[in-house]
């Protein structure tokens, strides 16, 4: 099993990147060195021995730089925890535990990767896009990654420049509203079919609101794409000890409950799941 590090990380940068959205850079060399795309960290937002809020907040690893030992997080200010986090200035210390969870699988055999991010979903897919861009270096001319980045409104679409900066292997599309996303996906399909790419050789990776994940999982199945979704759940420990962060998945083998389903732990068995394992709430 991968080691997990509790790091008293110094803030190197805190900056606004969108409405209520912040980029936080932290010096956490052990995490930067070992994290994989789709993993997350559990961040203490209050100061040491300050108990309000008590629990840490799970945030995806946006990007890492193993050379400088920096990890980057992108987060939206929502409640007590993220409000305090947004007040941290360069030089202050933030305790972070990570890397946590099971990230995305990169299927070397895939001919195209489609990434769909809704809202803060961009935070969990950037690192993946980066790694996929590396994989793509050996591949053909066409963009290997189609990143479809969206949100409720134009201004909520964030981080587009970072994705674009990955260069030719990545093609960035943006969308607002569900209808627009479907159009964008259709366009990607057309492009792929023009290029003679079969959809069943593509992988779909997605992170965002549950409704979106669910529709995309169905869409991917329809097109026989491999599909991985990154889920969220209320957490406390982040390491698989407290069993707070459950989601329903198909039981698989070795299930002794003689049931068709089981509760998996988002923090340990996920947050990334193969879409076909997930049993969505009705």
């Amino acid at each position, binding site marked *: 099993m991968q*080691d997990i*590090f509790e790091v008293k990380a110094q803030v190197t940068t805190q900056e606004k990147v969108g409405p209520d959205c912040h980029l936080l850079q932290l010096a956490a060399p052990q995490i930067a060195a070992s994290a994989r795309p789709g993993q997350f960290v559990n961040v203490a937002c209050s100061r040491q*021995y300050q108990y*309000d*809020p008590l629990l840490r907040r799970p945030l995806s690893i946006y990007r890492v730089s193993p050379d400088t030992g920096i990890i980057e997080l992108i987060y939206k200010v929502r409640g007590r925890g993220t409000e305090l986090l947004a007040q941290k200035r360069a030089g202050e210390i933030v305790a972070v535990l990570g890397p946590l969870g099971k990230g995305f699988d990169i299927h070397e055999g895939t001919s195209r990767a489609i990434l769909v991010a809704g809202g803060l979903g961009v935070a969990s897919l950037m690192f993946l896009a980066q790694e996929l861009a590396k994989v793509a270096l050996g591949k053909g001319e066409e963009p290997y990654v189609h990143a479809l980045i969206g949100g409720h409104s134009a201004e909520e679409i964030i981080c587009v420049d970072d994705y674009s900066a990955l260069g030719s292997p990545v093609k960035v599309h943006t969308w607002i509203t569900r209808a627009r996303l479907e159009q964008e996906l259709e366009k990607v399909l057309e492009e792929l079919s023009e290029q003679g790419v079969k959809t069943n050789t593509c992988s779909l990776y997605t992170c965002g609101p549950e409704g979106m994940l669910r529709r995309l999982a169905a869409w991917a199945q329809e097109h026989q794409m491999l599909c991985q979704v990154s889920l969220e759940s*209320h957490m406390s420990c982040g390491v698989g000890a407290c069993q707070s962060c459950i989601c329903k998945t198909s039981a698989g083998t070795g299930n002794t409950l003689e049931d068709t389903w089981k509760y998996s732990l988002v923090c340990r068995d996920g947050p990334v799941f193969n879409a076909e394992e997930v049993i969505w709430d009705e």
Partner: protein
Amino acid sequence: MNKQTAASATGTSVDLRVEMAGLVLKNPVMVSSGTFGYGEEYSRIYDINRLGAIVAKATTIRPKHGNPPPRVVEVVGGMLSCCGQQNVGLERFISEKLPFIRTLSVPFFANVAGEIVDDYVFIAEKLCAAGGIAALELNVSCPNLQQGGMAFGVDPAAVKEIVAAVKKISSLPVVCKLTPNVTDVVAIARAAEEAGADALSLINAPLGMAIDVETRRPKLGNVVGGLTGPAIKPLALRMVWQVAQSVSVPVIGIGGITTAEDALEFIIAGATAVQIGTANFFRPLAPLEIIAGMEDYLKKHGLDNIKELRGSLELPPARGGH
């Protein structure tokens, strides 16, 4: 393997060892049931053999899905949770978890939960036979299906019955874990002691609730859940103090312990050891920090041995002014 160490230097001059229920723990800092999995998770963060002891998640006869989500909600100074004893069940505990546990050099307690007295006996027998376990902690906060669903742990007679039944067949020391949801915790403690418990641990979680006013629904899938974390420390400390004075078996203090100071409060109140629960979630190195902090405290106060501190609470002189 990465084995992080606590910040403070740990000298060698003070003795943190404690004896309990026939076991010797290298220090009084245990981790509590349900907050440390089966140890595997935290062994990815630090060397868990440095702990005094580890208590496993509750084991029931059959595997359990547990309660529907949401299972956790943050409250002021604590959290509410209702995992509903999701666990792999006795059989898989023995086949899948014990092999790892046997590789550890730290005493490992099983936590036993059941719905009828026979459940406790059945699990205890199998665990004694399986080997690899240092002691049994009986979780009597579970609903007593033979007596209309009120928890076993609120009824001295039921506690006595379970403890006596398990003691009869157990080759391992038996710790009885008490619930705080009672009028008179001392009466329950005495019942457990009389039935032969080798030690008592307390407290399990007080029952609480939270409501989402926007949806007018409970914030927990199970409606009510256990309140844990710093918020319950004063309650836990009071109960541990009351019980430690009233029984002669060792008492393990549990409830909101986060710092060395917290742990020392319980020991001064009479606890032989402590268990760290919710703090594992928000301060993953808390147990190591507490061990180091205890050593520092002993040195600073010129004490050689943690036992000198046990039950050393000095009460004020008879109160005037009434």
